[in-house]
């Protein structure tokens, strides 16, 4: 069965049982974090959870937080087979995802987000460029718990929440959007609310680009290596990620030096100074390759469509965009390639796609719910 017809069946089924009173929920299964947007006590709220640690906690009946030093290496080895049950937005280990969703469902009922999974209309946000078979497999895992499901594309749902105008009228988005995830970095061109396609030798292909070498985890590895080279301190990958999340905005965007104390992999305390130079070095490959990929992607479009796309700014979401200066840095690098194109970061970048997906689900429910 093709994904399109599977999606059509899912859509028909959902529409048949859709009620106005259903509770909207948008979930994006990320490799690192499970992100969702929901409505609680009259307020839209976001929630994220480190995917692997929850299962490790359950399996070893004790709490394991991201830890530093030798303990990190040991616990990572213990939980190796439990980690990464989702990769690049699609399922890798079905059994674990099902177990995880069961636990998630229970805790959501406990927190009072909804009373039973039957009253939920769920938006699953998956990447456009993933393999169709894997996408179906992923949705099947959610289907065991939730009956009413709509499937959205990561970047389209993010772009849909930013207004687009044509002759003063609000229209579906025609833009270039990006998503910097933990495992993949995607660019997707959306034309009139659908992922742009192109005919190549009688075959229709989607115009999107995905790279693993620019994803968050590779930047973590680079930080790990750079700190080793500059200071002779060996740190865990967990720690490199934490350094990136806590200090990279300050060091890269605001050019401030920061002295930190850390524990190396053999549990020795060390003091190092993070400098803008290290931050620049760790982000340079990402910025460079982004700047060279965007023009290649735009060149695939017809000239009239291309002009429509570059009329508006490009919007990038994803956890990495918490580094506020990154969008500006890519824009500068693009200018060097003689492309004058405005790039901005999404509001609430980590939850860009779930927030958008949530809005679409809510409107969809109001329009079609009985």
């Amino acid at each position: 069965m093709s994904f399109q017809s599977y999606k059509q069946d899912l859509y028909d089924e959902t529409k048949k049982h859709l009620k106005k009173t259903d509770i909207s929920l948008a979930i994006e299964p990320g490799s690192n974090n499970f992100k969702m947007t929901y409505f609680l006590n009259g307020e839209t709220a976001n929630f994220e959870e480190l995917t692997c640690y929850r299962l490790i906690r359950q399996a070893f009946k004790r709490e394991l937080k991201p830890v530093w030093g030798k303990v990190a290496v040991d616990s990572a080895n213990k939980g190796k087979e439990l980690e990464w049950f989702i990769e690049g937005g699609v399922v890798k280990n079905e059994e674990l995802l099902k177990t995880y969703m069961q636990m998630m469902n229970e805790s959501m009922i406990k927190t009072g987000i909804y009373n039973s999974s039957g009253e939920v209309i769920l938006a699953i946000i998956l990447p456009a460029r993933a393999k169709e078979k894997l996408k179906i497999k992923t949705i099947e895992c959610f289907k065991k718990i939730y009956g009413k499901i709509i499937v959205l594309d990561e970047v389209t749902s993010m772009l849909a929440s930013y207004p687009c105008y044509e002759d003063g009228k609000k229209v579906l988005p025609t833009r270039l959007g990006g998503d910097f995830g933990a495992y993949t970095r995607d660019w997707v061109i959306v034309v009139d609310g659908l992922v742009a396609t192109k005919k190549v030798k009688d075959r229709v292909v989607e115009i999107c680009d995905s790279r693993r070498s620019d994803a968050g985890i590779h930047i973590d590895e680079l930080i790990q290596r750079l700190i080793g080279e500059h200071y002779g301190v060996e740190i865990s990958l967990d720690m490199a990620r934490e350094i990136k999340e806590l200090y990279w905005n300050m060091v890269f965007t605001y050019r401030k030096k920061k002295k930190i104390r850390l524990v190396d992999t053999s549990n020795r305390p060390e003091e190092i100074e993070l400098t803008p130079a290290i931050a620049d070095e760790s982000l340079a490959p990402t910025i460079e390759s982004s700047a060279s990929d965007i023009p290649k992607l735009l060149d695939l479009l017809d000239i009239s469509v291309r002009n429509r796309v570059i009329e508006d700014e490009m919007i990038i979401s994803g956890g990495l965009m918490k580094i506020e200066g990154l969008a500006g840095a890519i824009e500068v690098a693009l200018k060097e390639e003689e492309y004058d194109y405005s790039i901005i970061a999404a509001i609430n970048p980590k939850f860009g796609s779930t927030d958008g997906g949530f809005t679409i689900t809510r409107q969809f429910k109001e329009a079609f719910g009985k």
Partner: protein
Amino acid sequence: MKVDETLLFNLIFKTGELMYYTAKKLKYAAGRKQKYKSLQLTIIFLCLKKIKKDKFFEVMASLGKRKDNVLRAHGKLLEDGILDIEVDEGVYYKVNPKIKQEIMKIAEEKLYHVEKEQIEFAESKEIEIKVAEKREETEYSKEQLEKLVGVG
């Protein structure tokens, strides 16, 4: 800036930063020398969220807190007059209105402080931070929605 209980609840689980500030301030409010422990603060925030009594321990358990510890911490909060004694079975634990006001104030200050600090810093360094303009809700028609969901 509007600060309500849901936002508080989210903040505490997201950052834990607010917890620290509240602890620092409540230390004086409660007349205790030692800093407030996270468990007691979690109880306060759950009470603010109006979790029903029968669900209270379930939520605590899901957060990994043991029932005996919760009861002990709860007792201390009642002693200090931060929580009011529950009136009836199934009724919410109530937070002392004065303390509630105090927490709201801290939350407001904290949120405001963070925003202001960031803006001031950016202005002083003349750094251009490009973030999308405030998003307005885009209302889509039925046909547009069907297209967005992918089967129009």
